[in-house]
């Protein structure tokens, strides 16, 4: 079993829809949780970061973390064609870097249809 599980998609939804992207994890040592967005042929860019259970909102994006159930979600409201990208969850035990620095999910390919 991989430490981080993420449905690769593709996930295709119409413009304006609410999108929920999910990751589950098995390592209870993970303390810090991030969502990266990666456009085609570009490097990933940090979208959101959270470390406490509950919701963290930033504009149309909400990161939801449930440490008890060991999952993290990214909610996108009023989705736009420009949101079409691959979304990667990433997690850290906060040990200071290296291989323990970040563990990535495989990414979910999201397509927003105009």
């Amino acid at each position, binding site marked *: 079993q991989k430490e981080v599980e993420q449905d690769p998609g593709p996930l295709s939804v119409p413009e304006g829809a609410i999108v929920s992207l999910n990751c589950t994890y098995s390592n209870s040592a993970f303390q810090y949780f991030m969502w990266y967005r990666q456009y085609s042929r570009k490097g990933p860019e940090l979208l959101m970061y959270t470390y406490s259970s509950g919701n963290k909102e930033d504009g149309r994006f909400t990161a939801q973390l449930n440490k008890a159930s060991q999952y993290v979600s990214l909610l996108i409201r009023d989705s736009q064609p420009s949101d079409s990208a691959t979304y990667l969850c990433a997690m850290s035990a906060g040990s200071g870097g290296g291989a*323990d620095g970040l563990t990535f999910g495989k990414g979910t390919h999201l397509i927003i249809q105009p």
Partner: protein
Amino acid sequence: GAGVSQSPSNKVTEKGKDVELRCDPISGHTALYWYRQSLGQGLEFLIYFQGNSAPDKSGLPSDRFSAERTGGSVSTLTIQRTQQEDSAVYLCASSLGGWYTGELFFGEGSRLTVL
């Protein structure tokens, strides 16, 4: 430039040849990472530098892979005797270092194709 710069952006090589990939991190970032991204495989950690030293090389897939960093800045990833399974996008990232909280800044990657 303000971001992480990688070169070449694309490299096509023949099996058995050596390749060298370069990463120029954001100025002042002490931590530097190399990842490999293969189709459908997500990001695979290769190596981590803190300054010029590499405290964690555990992700290098074989002894054909090596990396160095000089002057606490530019890093090169070298793949010797390339194989077709080395074909992937090689991503470099940097961060401020110190106590790590995951805010990596990635370059656009070097896309390697081994024929």
